[in-house]
């Protein structure tokens, strides 16, 4: 698809997304909002794991950083939530930078374990510091807008998601994105042709963490209640599952995965709280037999063509 065509198609999709909630009830609107949150989380995690091969288990923790920073500032210091979200994003970016720099010398497994340790430490701190975070009870926070309106929140999340995806798209198709892919394919070879591997990996961590923090901040003020469920391994799992099932290393994979799993969850809920089990089984099968996810399967069964453009 040429550049111009992409803009048209994207524009149409976004326009469609704008009109969509108007015909839906409150609960479906909620599902869409949650889906948009996961689109942002999955797409940014994909930048780390799918594009630079850094499988981080601390992504949900970054969302938690965004949510709790903004929430605590609002509750304790009366800071306007919008500014709070910016602060949360900045803090997440900073921690992402630190974590990325920390993990530079580490191989894949050690990096994953370090991010895991980071997420667990954060979770424990949040649960324990009741005075500040209200622990497992959850922190009640003000919303982003004076009058609560699902539609308004929907448009906010939609705008945020579109912004984030645009940034990711431009990144992936830039020189940086090409370096990302090269580093992921073969780091030694990438180094030998001059790629600044260390910078690339830390940059990916910083940007991805900032995005998670941003998404978390907005989400927290939507839910009006911030709990340790945000920086949890369960949320991290959902993000991972959506990316894996949708297709790691592809732009659309996480988006498709996020929507698909969230909508699927609602259908499964009718029978009981089995959705995580189902996600897990599907993710297991996909990861084992179709490692490139739904997008990978789609590409396989499309007519073959060789082309120059980066997918």
């Amino acid at each position, binding site marked *: 698809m040429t550049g111009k065509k992409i803009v048209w198609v994207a524009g149409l999709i976004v326009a469609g997304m704008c009109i969509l909630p108007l015909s839906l009830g409150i609960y479906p609107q909620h599902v869409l909002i949650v889906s948009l949150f996961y689109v942002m989380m999955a797409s940014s995690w994909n930048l780390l794991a799918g594009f630079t091969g850094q499988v981080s288990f601390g992504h949900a923790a970054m969302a938690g950083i965004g949510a709790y920073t903004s929430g605590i500032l609002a509750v304790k210091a009366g800071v306007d939530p919008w500014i709070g979200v910016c602060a949360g994003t900045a803090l997440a970016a900073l921690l992402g930078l630190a974590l990325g720099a920390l993990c530079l010398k580490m191989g894949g*497994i050690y990096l994953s374990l370090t991010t895991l340790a980071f997420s*667990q430490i954060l979770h424990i701190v949040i649960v*324990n510091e009741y005075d500040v975070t209200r622990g497992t009870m959850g922190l009640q926070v003000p919303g982003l807008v004076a009058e609560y309106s699902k539609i308004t929140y929907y448009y906010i999340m939609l705008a945020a998601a579109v912004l984030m995806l645009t940034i990711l798209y431009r990144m992936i198709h830039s020189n940086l994105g090409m370096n990302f892919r090269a580093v992921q394919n073969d780091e030694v070879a990438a180094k030998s042709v001059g790629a600044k591997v260390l910078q690339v990996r830390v940059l990916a961590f910083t940007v991805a963490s900032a995005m998670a923090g941003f998404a978390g901040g907005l989400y927290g003020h939507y839910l009006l209640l911030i709990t340790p469920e945000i920086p949890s391994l369960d949320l991290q*799992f959902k993000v991972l599952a959506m990316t894996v099932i949708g297709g790691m290393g592809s732009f659309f994979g996480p988006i498709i995965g996020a929507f698909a799993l969230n909508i699927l969850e609602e259908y499964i809920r009718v029978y009981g709280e089995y959705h995580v*089990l189902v996600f897990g089984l599907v993710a297991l099968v996909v990861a*084992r037999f179709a490692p490139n996810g739904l997008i990978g399967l789609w590409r396989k069964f499309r007519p073959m063509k060789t082309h120059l453009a980066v997918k």
Partner: protein
Amino acid sequence: MFAISIMNGLVMGVIYALAALGVSLVVGIMNVVNFAHGELYILAGYFSYLFASALGVNFVLALVLAVGLVFILGLLIEYLLIRPTYGNDMYSLILTFILSIVLQNAYLLIFGPYPNKPPLWVSGATDVFGLFLYGNQRLAALVAGAAVIAVIFLIIKKTWFGRIIRAASQDREMAELNGVNTTRLNMLSFGLGCALAAAAGVILAPVFPVTPSAGVPVALTAFVVVVLGGMGSLWGCVVGGLTLGLVENLGAAFISTGYKNVFGFIILILVLLVRPSGLFGRAKV
């Protein structure tokens, strides 16, 4: 207070070491980190409860059956999931992470959220050194755990199978060139790793409640111990496990119980920063 913490630290330390041995074995030979390690530990607990309490099987037999079943499951997991990932550690990490979540939810579905307790092996308490009373089951756990560790050490150091394991974890290619069937070795090692988790599980099941997600902290702790002790080092697991057990329990007693688990993670990050090869591990070139 101090003395009891030390006792608890020792008991937990031995169990941590046992769980870590399972992880270390698999990492050393296959370079695979089994995220679902904790779920296999808990599964053994569930099995021992099923056989001993629900079915009334003789409790020693129940233990053996539990460990044996998990061993076989380990072989199956290796064959189905791990084998195709050979060489790509990220892939196996992702797969075992997903498996861990799947198992946790499966347990929730099958066994329900409430804790299950297999019967105690021994009841009552003993006067330790005249200082305090300590539960006999915990003492039994300490002894049993230490015994299993000793057996493993014997196997690794003295037997022919142990020699193959040591060779393969040092240099896989060399072992292959010398005729070792690495595929079968992988499968057996993975099974053995799971069996070790299972052993730890049946030992502690009478003491701590068996719930669907109780395996998660065990796996995480095992990872910390392996990193602290050094990947692929058996002594590292023992020293690391005991160290962690003591630090955690002393920390919980004197600093804060809520933050008990933080110590392990902080230790992990510090070790990876300062000396990634751990206390006894081989330094990376």
